[in-house]
């Protein structure tokens, strides 16, 4: 009995030591984890949205809706692809099909779309300055006091075309969201759709009209 009494405090001390050591270990590990902070300067990171979630090329790599775009990225759309880059407080850049553009932006409210070829529309918010340029130099800047948009169509070897609607004019690449279909079910066209839906409905209703099956086993 006495020896049990003597062992009691020892056991409690051992348990306490174990618990404290556990806590210490956890605190130590937590401190180490906190020290692995990533050395990245806070900066604007844009968001990509692609039409129908089709991937486009960002710096030569495939990227789709939700991808992050950092300053200096080269974005390229193929035929039938288009994309929008959301620069948050700076504005947006709409990239039509068959376009290559280099996008740069900073944290002081400036962004620039250098159009290598194709069609681009920038929309700068108030207090931001959007610029659109080609290899022939700057083609225009928005006014930070009012914001605004600029639209440019360019093919190397030709004069850049600027102005409202140049990207939606006949012969221009397809702008974001403008990828139409031929209409009808799955793009089959309205007449074909009516035929398919009609045939399906007729087939579904057939048992109601011909309940007395002439080739059934009861005959």
């Amino acid at each position: 009995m006495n020896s049990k009494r003597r062992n009691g405090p020892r056991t409690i001390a051992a348990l306490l030591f174990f618990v404290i050591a556990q806590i210490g270990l956890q605190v130590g590990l937590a401190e180490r984890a906190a020290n692995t902070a990533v050395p990245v300067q806070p900066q604007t990171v844009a968001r990509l949205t692609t039409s129908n979630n089709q991937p486009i090329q960002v710096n030569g790599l495939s990227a789709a809706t939700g991808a992050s775009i950092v300053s200096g990225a080269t974005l390229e759309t193929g035929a039938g692809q288009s994309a929008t880059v959301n620069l948050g407080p700076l504005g947006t850049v709409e990239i039509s099909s068959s376009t290559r553009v280099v996008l740069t932006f900073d944290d002081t409210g400036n962004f620039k779309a250098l159009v290598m070829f194709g069609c681009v529309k920038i929309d700068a918010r108030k207090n931001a300055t959007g610029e659109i340029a080609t290899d022939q130099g700057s083609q225009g800047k928005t006014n930070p006091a009012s914001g605004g948009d600029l639209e440019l169509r360019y093919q190397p070897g030709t004069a850049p075309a600027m102005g409202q609607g140049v990207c939606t004019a006949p012969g221009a690449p397809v702008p974001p969201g403008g990828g139409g279909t031929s209409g009808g079910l799955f793009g089959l066209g309205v007449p074909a759709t009516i035929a398919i839906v009609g045939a399906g409905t007729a087939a579904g209703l057939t048992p109601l009209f011909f309940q007395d099956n002439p080739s059934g086993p009861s005959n």
Partner: protein
Amino acid sequence: MLLRSVVALLAVAFCLLAMQAAGRFGFARLLGKYAVATNSIPAADQAIALAPADAEVHRARARVMNRLKNPAEARKSFEVASSLRYRDDYLWLELGSTRDELGDAPAALAAFEQAVRWAPHYAHTLWQRGNLKLRMGRYDEAFADLRAAAASKKTLMPSLIDMTWGLTRGNPNTAEQLLQINNDSDRLAFAKFLARKGRGKECLEQLRLIATPLSEENRRAMVQQLIAAKAFHDAFALWRTDSTAKSPVIENGGFEEPVELPGTDQGFGWYIVGKPEPKIVRDGSEKLSGRSSLLLGFNGEWKAPADTILQRIVVEPQRRYRISFGVRTKELVTGAPPALVVTDASSEQRLGQSQPFPAPTNNWQTMSFEFDTAPATQAIVLAFTRVEGPCNPCPIFGEFWVDDFLIEDVTTVNPQH
């Protein structure tokens, strides 16, 4: 009998009800697909009216709304859809993406958290959440997600490296810290990326850390990328298999080893341009020394002498070099005789040229010429040229052999800058 009839009638009624329900459900799905294909809101609304408890038709309406640039309505439909089918990670992703589009990052994150919850080991959920956290400035958490996504789906690794590079503004050390590379496959991807960016030193450092031997295909690809980025010294360091080989050196200068097939640019060593105009063969019957030399035979045209056979040679800037070689001619008839030319591999500036080869027939003789490299010269290209003559066009007939190419640094011997 009556009981049987009642049971039969009930069964028939039940079947009819089930048929009607299935028909409504199927038709609602069809309408939903039709709505998405044609961007039709009425069709989407009709689909929902037919099957309001079906998540798929709400998703269809949301997609239509997104296409029609009405993300606020799309959000509502996605929210209904995800509440109806809350275990669908793709629905949560679409909801999160739409909320993100609306600028509601916290709500988007909540949706992405649900997506990760229901598909915790898949790349697509972690990738989307990581990207959102990155834009929210939560870099630690973002990279934890992005790395996990890339580990789960290897094809995402190049995109992660590229994004990290942009984020760190081209700082390889910070990028490496963020990427936390811990396997050969990822390290090779990073090394390839660095080669593409012309960061030869850093590329070689990464390659040294790879435990498995580098495949010949990868080595060639990176040598070409480094050359394209004009990182010639690092490209040469990666190309040479013998680490004791020091530059400057003319590889296979005596043509004792086979020359690569036309069109195969290995980076260094002799490179026969695809479909050369003259006949080019190693010839064992004629040589200044060793076992063979190189024969060039002509039968009329030689419009692009620089695009015949050439070799890149790594050199130092602002040095003086001497190139010597043996040449033999046989019945060489032309108004513009051949010679050798050295150009800067980056700027293509002409640095030096040999005397024209002796014509028409001359036995083996050793020729040499000297040139100075420019302050920015890292490598030169040794190629053929033709000494301008009065003729135009200028046909060429006959043949010549070259052998025993040698390059020496003669800066201290003959420092004529």
